[in-house]
């Protein structure tokens, strides 16, 4: 459990750090941007036997994302929860290997952006269009694959090192 929490915190801080390294604006989106916390949620899911604990972590990091990064209320928490349910469904359907984990990560990131786009457009937060959504999604793919692949091997290695099969 501690390893997953440390990994989640690391990914969470990485959001802030990487946003400075590869800054993005609507007109110029970097190819090396993604939502690291969501990828971390994808990577840690297979190690959870007790899903209740997993969902508690999802809620906590959703609230933290709301409070610290976007200054919103419940928005990211709900999006993270929906993504966690989708991660569960996809994990039940797909086998656990690096390609499938990458696929789940990509689907999760796409879902995050689509949900953000739909909700923020519905409440008239800004004038977004579908081209911007497609741009953001396509620009997120490279970093999503890189971070998922690296995390998959590192977390697997750490869990093997400590001989942990699943978190009960």
């Amino acid at each position: 459990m501690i390893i997953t929490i440390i990994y989640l915190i690391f990914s969470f801080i990485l959001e802030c750090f990487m946003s400075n390294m590869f800054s993005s604006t609507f007109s110029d989106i970097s190819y090396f941007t993604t939502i690291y916390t969501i990828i971390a949620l994808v990577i840690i899911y297979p190690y959870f036997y007790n899903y209740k604990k997993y969902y508690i972590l999802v809620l906590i990091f959703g609230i933290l994302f709301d409070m610290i990064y976007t200054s919103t209320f419940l928005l990211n928490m709900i999006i993270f929860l929906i993504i966690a349910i989708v991660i569960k469904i996809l994990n039940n359907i797909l086998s656990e290997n690096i390609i499938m984990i990458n696929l789940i990560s990509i689907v999760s990131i796409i879902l995050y952006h689509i949900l953000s786009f739909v909700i923020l457009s519905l409440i008239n937060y800004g004038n977004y269009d579908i081209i911007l959504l497609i741009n953001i999604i396509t620009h997120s793919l490279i970093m999503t694959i890189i971070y998922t692949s690296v995390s998959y091997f590192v977390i697997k290695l750490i869990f093997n090192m400590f001989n942990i099969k699943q978190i009960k």
Partner: protein
Amino acid sequence: MLGRKKKMIPKKYVVVMIIILIILILIIFSFMLKGDRKLNPVESFLKDGLVYTEKVVTYPFNYISNKISEYKKLKSVNKDNAVLETSIDRVSSIESENIELRRQLDKLKEELNIDYTLVDYEYLNATVVSRNVGFWYNTITIDKGSYNGVEKDMVVINSKGLIGRIIRTSAFTSDIRLITTSDTNNKISVHISNGDNNLYGLINNYNYSDNLLEVEGISNTKDVTIGDYVYTSGLGGIFPSGILIGTVSEISTDSYDLAKIIKVVPSADFTDINYVSVLKRKSVEE
């Protein structure tokens, strides 16, 4: 068998309940995002904590990159020095000119009854600590907050021009909404300077595919030429007058062919903002 049957809620009621729940959530989101609400103490504490954690984490990386850039600068120091030596002779004449201009400005302000111009502001320099996390909010966070005297709606600039305004502050951090946000609350009154002509308009939209701000409300566009400078007009109360926003790049009409739209290239590079200045009004004693 004797146990009571569970009462099932009819499907149509479930659907109605879900729709009501979604509407309620959207209303909550709408209030929370539109109101530029104040951060509560927990949010403020967590935000400050993260900024300092990030500062500690990034310190070694920043130290190395600073050393590299210092070394690069050192290479061209002789050249720069020669240029500076020639311009240093002009400093005293510029200083005296400055004093005279200041005197004239004070006199004009008194005559025209103008309260604040750019010289009535002090600059609080700040470093950008995070940018646009979550992509959709178009905000950046700086490392100065209410403890440093930053308040909501203060104007933020950098060396090239207008950046945005403060929308939220915690004790040691502040969020800035960039002017490249096309929301309805982000209209900025501008004036276009072309010789003796001063035309007033409103930044109404940001076209992110072309990175252009769109100015509307100017009827006589004949006096506007490509390359004219666009400044804040000072009308509206938030932005003081005279801050450079950008230059005119195109004059077109809207989709109904009714109103003229002036497209402006922002002078600031929004992908490369590391340091900014918050404009604070000077206190009366000063």
